[in-house]
């Protein structure tokens, strides 16, 4: 049997997929993924805490690490270890560190082409084109040693993009770039991925980056794939408490559904009652999840101040226990029997004069509450 993935090309299939993948290191199982795939024009952002196994998954997809069990398929064809080189000639890999070779920028970018036997004028044209697209054409004849972190990573990206691979594997490609240059580089990469769509796996610990570049988000925690969905779904409807915690859902109130009326459930939580949209039945134990930006605070006992919005159906009272700065916001923790966290703009926090110990009311819409079913 010959290895010819193109013969069986099927647009609906993932370009690259993994099944029942297990990677062990020193006898310990570090990754166990039942199913993972990336479609032809999709960018899967693989997110998760440090050490969750994200990079291991990426390297396992290229058969650069293990896997001890399971299979990797390119366009539906099994890639055996003997065929690893055929697979790698169809991918482009970018690591967190630029890993440039000690030669000129041009020869770095041409390296992968040379591995594929592409040289001469054809290679030169492609190298120049991609150096230009990444904005580093002017550095063409410089030594790779002289580059800044941002420039070096642009060269590393050009080195992968120039291969015009079927699958791009990017492992924290912006992590080594200093903050000032990072945002621009993320934008530029996003633009290139839109202009020349190709199956891309992007490993990152940064949710912002994942949201900007990913068409899907795969959350890996402790070596397991916990959720795989469009980024906005993962952010607003995490499937379990660990994912909720990872994606920044800071308010997680355990409770029980006591009544349901027209899809609107009433959940008894420690500090009161919460109305939420629910598909669960009465008696179900649930976790009420709330993103901090969906919670509004106002000082209690100021009846002169009108309710901000009438559609905010839920109201919990409590005492402010902690206020911490978070960019343009302050993050306020309120003890309402259980902890509720709200992001308030610095301006309005000053206006209200919020201080630790103040009694406040936290309000939020029923639609902002996401319920996770708990099995006891």
């Amino acid at each position: 049997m010959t290895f010819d993935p193109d013969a069986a090309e099927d647009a609906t299939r993932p370009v690259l997929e993994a099944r029942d993948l297990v990677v062990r290191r020193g006898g310990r199982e570090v990754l166990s993924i039942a199913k993972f795939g990336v479609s032809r024009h999709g960018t899967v952002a693989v997110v998760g805490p440090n050490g969750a196994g994200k990079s291991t998954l990426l390297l396992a997809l290229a058969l650069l690490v293990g896997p001890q069990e399971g299979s990797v398929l390119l366009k539906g064809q099994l890639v055996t270890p003997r065929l690893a080189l055929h697979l790698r000639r169809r991918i482009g890999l970018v690591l967190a560190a630029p890993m440039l070779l000690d030669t000129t920028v041009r020869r770095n970018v041409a390296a992968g082409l040379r591995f594929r036997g592409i040289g001469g004028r054809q290679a030169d044209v492609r190298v120049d084109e991609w150096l230009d697209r990444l904005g580093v054409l002017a550095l063409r004849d410089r030594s790779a040693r002289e580059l800044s972190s941002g420039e070096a990573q642009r060269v590393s990206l050009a080195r992968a993009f120039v291969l015009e691979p079927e699958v791009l594997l990017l492992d924290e490609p912006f992590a080594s770039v200093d903050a000032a240059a990072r945002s621009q580089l993320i934008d530029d990469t996003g633009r290139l991925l839109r202009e020349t769509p190709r199956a891309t796996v992007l490993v990152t610990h940064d949710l912002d980056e994942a949201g900007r570049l990913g068409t899907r988000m795969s959350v890996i925690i402790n070596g397991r794939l916990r959720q795989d969905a469009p980024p906005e779904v993962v952010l607003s409807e995490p499937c379990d408490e660990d994912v909720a915690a990872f994606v920044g859902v800071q308010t997680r109130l355990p409770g029980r559904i006591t009544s349901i009326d027209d899809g609107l459930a009433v959940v008894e939580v420690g500090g009161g009652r919460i109305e939420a949209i629910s598909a669960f039945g009465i008696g179900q134990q649930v976790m009420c999840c709330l993103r901090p930006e969906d919670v509004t605070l106002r000082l209690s006992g100021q009846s002169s101040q009108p309710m901000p919005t009438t559609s905010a159906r839920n109201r919990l009272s409590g005492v402010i226990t902690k206020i911490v700065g978070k960019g343009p916001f302050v993050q306020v923790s309120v003890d309402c029997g259980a902890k509720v966290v709200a992001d308030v703009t610095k301006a309005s926090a000053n206006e209200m004069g919020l201080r630790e110990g103040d009694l406040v009311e936290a309000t939020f819409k029923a639609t902002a509450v996401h319920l996770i079913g708990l099995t006891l």
Partner: protein
Amino acid sequence: MDELIQITLLSLGVSGIATAISLLIGLPLGTVLALSVFRSRGIVLSVVNTGMALPPVVAGLAIALLLWRSGPLGDLNLIYTPSAIILAEVVIATPVILGLSAAGIGQLDPRLQVQLQGLGASRMQTVFWLWREARLSLLAALMAGFGSVISEVGAAMMVGGNISGQTRVLTTAMVLDVGRGNFGAAIQLAGILLALAFLVNGILTWAQQSGKRH
């Protein structure tokens, strides 16, 4: 004067050939040692390190026992020939080149190998680029290997026999001259040896500095 040139050329030839053979053996083995993970790696490494500190006279003795007329390879009639010296010098230089090249390649970032393979490099292409990245260490290994045999005297004496016009090299000639009290000749030979050492180190230093500029 003719004899001096002949001795110098023989020294250079014997040591050069021995270093080249040692490179052919030591570099591939050193590469494998640096890149592979196996259970007895620690043992192999300590054997190599012991080899690097191997007293040349011990290597000479081993080759002499092997090539002696009544020895296992006695029928080859190699004892007291330049080939015998080359053989002994290979035994001396191979562990040096193997050990230093393994160390040089081992110092490279392990992610570099992953990166190269992730760009589609075959095994040989990967090794080629790793050698290129470690080129200064490999050059140093080569120079150290050459240095260890050009200045060696014990083994060359034992298996070469210091036969005038056949196996007399710079170091063995010096031993003989000093023994006879021919200090003038010995000093001349010493000058040549020093010049060679200077040349070898000069090339190495030049290569390292031009490597840094790049």
